[in-house]
C-alpha cells in the first residue's frame, strides 16, 4: 500500500487535533506517514501520539534550517519526501501556512492542489463548500501527487494503534528558501476556551453587543463553547482578529452556532453557514440572519443572554 504523507501541525511537539483528523482521512487513501518538522527530541514524543492515531511511520525532520524562515523550507522538505516515497497523496491542514506550503509543493512537484476540502473519499475525490457554503463541489487531482489541504473538524480522529515508527529524514534546504525570515514571534495567549475552528458550540457577537462581550462570553462559558465575533465587532476594535468568523476570518462548522447582534451579511455567512444548528438573537426582526436560523429570538441580547446563561447553568445543574 502506498504511503500518504501528512504534515504534522504542532506547537512545541504538541500535535494539533486537525493533524489527527488528517491521519484518519489519510487511512482511506493508503498508509498514513506523518511528517514531523521540529526538534528531534520532540519528534520521538509526538510519534507516540501520531502512531496511536494511525501513523505507521513518522518522518522526523530536524528544523534547525527550517524554523527561522517562512513556508518555503517546509515545502522543500515535503518535495524531497515526495521524491523519496512517491506517496498516494499529501495532506495538510487548511491554515495560512498549510495552504501556502501546499501551493509551493504543487509547483515544485507539478501536482494538482485542492484547498479547503471538508471530506476525502477512498478514491481521492474531495468535497469543498464554496460560494459562502451555497455550493458543494466534488473535485479530484488529475496530475502528479494529489495535494489536499483539509479544514479542521472535517472528520473525527480515530485511535487505531499504528506503529508510529520513527525514521529520521535529513532534508537539504536551499539558500533561496531562506529569503523570507521570521524576525520575531509572539505566541498567542491561551484563552482557556475551546479553539474556535474545533469547538462543538460557538457563541458569537457582533455590532449589536455595542462592544460589551461579557454576555456573549458568559453564555459561551456556561455552554463550554468558543467565542467568535463578526467583522464589524473586529473592525470596531472590540475583539482581536483571531476571533473573527467569516470570509476573511475563520470558517466554523460546529454542531451549534449562536449569532448574537449579528445581522448576517454574506461575509459572515461564508464563515458559519455550514453549521449544523443555527440560533440567532437580534433586535432587528428584518436581519438576514433570521433566514438561516433553526431558532431565533427577536430581542435585546443584553437581556436575553444573561437570562439564558442562568437557565443553562440551572439545567446543567
Amino acid at each position: 500500500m502506498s504511503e500518504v504523507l501528512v504534515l504534522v501541525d504542532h506547537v512545541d511537539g504538541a500535535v494539533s487535533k486537525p493533524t489527527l483528523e488528517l491521519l484518519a482521512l489519510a487511512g482511506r487513501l493508503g498508509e498514513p506517514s506523518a511528517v514531523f518538522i521540529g526538534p528531534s527530541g520532540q519528534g520521538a514524543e509526538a510519534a507516540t501520539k501520531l502512531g496511536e492515531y494511525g501513523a505507521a511511520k513518522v518522518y522526523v525532520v530536524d528544523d534547525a534550517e527550517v524554523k527561522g524562515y517562512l513556508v518555503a523550507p517546509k515545502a522543500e522538505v515535503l518535495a524531497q519526501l515526495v521524491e523519496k516515497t512517491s506517496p498516494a497523496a499529501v495532506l495538510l491542514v487548511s491554515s495560512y501556512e498549510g495552504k501556502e506550503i501546499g501551493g509551493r509543493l504543487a509547483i515544485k512537484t507539478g501536482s494538482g492542489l485542492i484547498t479547503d476540502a471538508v471530506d476525502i473519499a477512498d478514491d481521492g475525490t474531495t468535497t469543498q463548500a464554496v460560494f459562502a457554503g451555497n455550493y458543494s463541489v466534488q473535485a479530484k487531482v488529475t496530475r502528479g501527487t494529489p495535494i489536499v489541504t483539509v479544514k479542521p473538524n472535517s472528520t473525527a480522529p480515530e485511535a487505531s494503534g499504528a506503529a508510529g515508527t520513527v525514521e529520521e529524514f535529513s532534508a537539504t534546504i536551499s539558500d533561496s528558501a531562506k529569503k523570507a525570515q521570521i524576525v520575531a514571534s509572539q505566541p498567542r495567549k491561551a484563552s482557556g476556551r475551546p479553539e474556535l475552528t474545533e469547538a462543538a458550540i460557538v457563541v458569537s457577537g457582533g455590532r449589536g453587543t455595542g462592544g460589551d462581550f461579557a454576555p456573549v462570553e458568559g453564555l459561551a462559558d456556561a455552554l463550554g463553547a468558543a467565542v467568535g465575533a463578526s467583522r464589524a465587532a473586529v473592525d470596531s476594535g472590540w475583539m482581536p482578529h483571531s476571533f473573527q468568523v467569516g470570509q476573511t476570518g475563520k470558517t466554523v462548522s460546529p454542531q451549534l452556532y449562536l449569532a448574537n447582534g449579528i445581522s448576517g451579511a454574506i461575509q459572515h455567512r461564508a464563515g458559519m453557514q455550514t453549521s449544523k444548528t443555527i440560533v440567532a438573537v437580534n433586535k432587528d426582526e428584518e436581519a438576514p440572519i433570521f433566514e438561516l436560523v433553526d431558532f431565533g429570538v427577536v430581542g435585546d441580547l443584553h437581556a436575553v443572554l444573561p437570562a439564558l446563561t442562568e437557565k443553562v447553568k440551572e439545567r446543567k445543574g
Partner: protein
Amino acid sequence: MNIVVCVKYVPDATADRQFESDNTVDRVGVDGLLSELDEYAVEQALQIKEKRSDEDISITALCVGPEKAVDAVRKALQMGADKGVHVSDDAIAGSDYAATSLVLAKAVQKIDAEEKVDLVMCGMASTDGSGSVVPAMLAERLDYPQVTFGSKIETQGDQVRIQRDGDVATEIIGGSMPLVLSVTDQTGEARYPSFKGIMAAKKKPMETWSLGDIGVDAGEVGLSVAWTTVQEATARPPRQAGEVHTDEDGSGAGALADFLASKKFI
C-alpha cells in the same frame, strides 16, 4: 520603484453566483467586479507610494481574466494605480491555481524585462475561489521571497516587514525586494475612487496582452490541461428558516433554552 499589483475580477459575492455547465465559475452571466480583498493590496501599494513620495514609484495593476475583467484594472486605475495590464486569451478560461500562477509569473517577467520589478502585491485571497495559494505559487515560480498575509506593512529601502497573524502566533516577517507581498483586510480600509481619479484613469496607459505576448503556450493553460478537475458542483438546498420568537415579555431566554434542550445541547 516598480510595483505590480495583481487584481482579480470576480463574480459579485452579493449576487447569485453560479457555475457553468462545464463546472467552471460563471464569470460572464453574473455581475463582476474587482475582488474586494485585492482592493486592500491596491490601497497598500498607494500608501507605499505616498509614504515614499520622494522616490519615483510606478504601480501597475495586472489582471488575468476574460474581456470584462478589464473593469477590475479600471477600478485599480481609478483608485490611483498608474498603468494597467490585462492578460486576456480565450485559452485561459478554466485555468486552475497552477496555470493562473504561471500566467501571472510570465506577465510579471515581461514587465520586469522592461523595468525591474521590486514588489508584486496581492490580496490575501480571492472572494470567489478563496484559495489563498496563488501568491505563494507566484513566489515559487518567480523564485522571489514570499512575505504574505501581512496585517501591517512597513518598507524601508529594499526591505519589507510585515506582521502576520497566524493561528498560534503573531510573527514579524522580513525580506528583501524583489518579493511577493500579500496583505489582509486588517491593513485598513481601501479608498473609494474620487471623481478626479475616475477622470484621470481614462487617460492612463492600458495594455492588453495575449498568451503569445508573454510567451505562454496555449496548451499549458485552461480547463483541458488543469491539474485538478471539478466533477460536480451542486447548489446546497437553502436552509429552511425556523421558528422566530419575539421577546416581548422576557420569554425569549426560556423559549431559547427549551429549544436548546430539545436538541440536547443542554
